């Protein structure tokens, strides 16, 4: 069972929902839970869950490496590459590993056997625990642009027979799609403001393109206007969580603490969320 927490825009409270839901599921619903943080550019869940890292694994991408002695300068490799990651200029081959998607095409295309695969590290995946919650997060190397392979590596830790919560990166393009693809349910977190609405409508389009079942959670629900609720009503999208604007939550958040640990009266909200999730997702 994979539940993705996503949002068109960042900073709407995705991490708050993901971490507190994990906490609720483990402590109160006694479910087996894993939190997979796929926001590999800015992974934050572990800060709130105070996870203990047990293992760090490098994630590598295979990129071409040239044996200049074998190269005949024919240029076949640069012909096949769609990403300008390998160039053949006046018979001399240059590679640009940061642009390489690791498709392996150039290596197959080289008639001289001059290219082989070399490993390039794009980031790490850290696995650990926070109490009984399994935590996994990816950390993209700074300056690195290729996040989807790292997201796939984090997601590969999702296991059957437990609830895997997938905290997605913001946006509607490749990284978030890698994160939500194949999930059983997506909870889109938003705010009741024009920014929130604009980004929510983009996120809704995205989950519809992917054909995934989804619902909306509204964070800081007492600020702003009614337009997000109106939109959800018109689009027949269920709203299954509302968290009011609360300075105490902001203050807990700023200190890296979970809402449910410090403000137990919010337990009810997460219980309700859990019951609704159980209804929409047949376990």
């Amino acid at each position, binding site marked *: 069972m994979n539940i993705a927490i996503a949002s068109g825009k960042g900073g*709407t409270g995705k991490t708050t929902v993901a971490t507190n839901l994990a906490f609720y599921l483990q402590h109160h619903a006694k479910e087996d839970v894993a939190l997979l943080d796929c926001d590999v550019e800015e992974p934050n869940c572990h800060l709130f869950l105070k996870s203990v890292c047990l293992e760090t694994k490098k994630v590598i991408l295979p990129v071409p490496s040239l044996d200049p002695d074998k190269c005949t300068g024919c240029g076949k490799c640069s012909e096949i590459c*769609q990403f300008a990651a390998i160039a053949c200029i006046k018979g001399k081959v240059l590679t640009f590993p940061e642009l390489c*998607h690791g498709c392996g095409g150039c290596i*197959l295309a080289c008639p001289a056997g001059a290219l082989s695969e070399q490993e390039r590290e794009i980031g790490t995946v850290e696995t650990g625990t926070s109490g009984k919650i399994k935590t996994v997060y990816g950390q993209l190397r700074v300056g690195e642009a290729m*996040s989807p392979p790292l997201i796939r590596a984090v997601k590969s830790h999702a296991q059957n027979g437990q609830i895997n919560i997938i905290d997605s990166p913001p946006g509607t*393009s*490749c990284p978030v799609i890698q994160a939500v693809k194949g999930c059983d349910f997506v909870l889109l977190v938003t705010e009741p403001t024009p920014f929130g609405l604009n980004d929510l409508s983009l996120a809704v389009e995205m989950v519809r393109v992917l054909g995934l079942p989804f619902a909306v959670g509204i964070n800081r629900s007492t600020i*702003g206007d009614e337009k997000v609720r109106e939109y959800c009503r018109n689009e027949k999208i269920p709203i299954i969580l509302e968290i009011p604007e609360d300075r105490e939550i902001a203050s807990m958040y700023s200190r*890296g603490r979970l809402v449910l640990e410090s403000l137990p009266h919010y337990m009810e909200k997460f219980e309700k969320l859990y019951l609704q999730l159980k209804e929409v997702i047949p376990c």
Partner: protein
Amino acid sequence: MLKELVVISGKGGTGKTSIVAALASLLNNKVLADCDVDAADLHLVLQPQILEKKEFWSGKTASINRENCAECGKCLELCRFAAISNDYAIDNIACEGCGVCAYFCPAGAIDLKDNLCGHIFVSRTPHGPMVHARLDIAEENSGKLVSQVRTQARALAYAEKRSAVIVDGPPGTGCPVIASISGASTVLVVTEPTVSGIHDLERVLELARHFRIPAIVCINKWDINPGISASITNKCEQIEARVVGQIPYDGAVTRAQVQGISVLEYDPGSPASLELQKLGKVVESLLNQ
């Protein structure tokens, strides 16, 4: 020389767009660019009137012509992105457009087709010209689109003899951010005094250093946690990234957003507006240097 200030933040939702909108109303003679192409929001505050719309084509997707396909399985074997199913259908979303399948298909049954990925707009706003874009849902290559938005914005600035480009950047540290900041004159990093805010700020400043771009910092909602704000300021001093603004938490910012205007227009005397005016002065003098 044309200056380019890029406003970024490690984490989304730190108030980047509201700050860009405020700068837009404070600074003269600028071109604005929204490079948060995944979830562009600046248009909600600046209400641009679109003058020009251009198509953005990028990347390719493979498609199999079933009539020619001999079902030999070669493409299945070679595709590293699991984009081809056992019955030879291509999953457009998984396909990276590398073309390996097309190149090696013995029957020549696979074509690579160009993707229309979105649009770029050139607009007029009450605060000057603006270039923005919309990436279609589930399309890749936001980095490339970001580069094109910046190129257009710079061209517009030259054509209209404007002295600077103010860019609303995307969140994160990945491909679109790299495309937004490479070669810029200064980055303004917006952060919040939270544990995750510091964590993300450090990563973004490291990124700016990696590309050798001078960085300044603005702490939004600094009074949510004055202690963390102070340690952010300390840390920034150590690495020579000056904190040039501390905006207090102010409900007027959200109310302005709901009205679709910048907080300076909504309530110029509000606490956030007063601080933003100071920030505007610092940025102005940096851009005029």
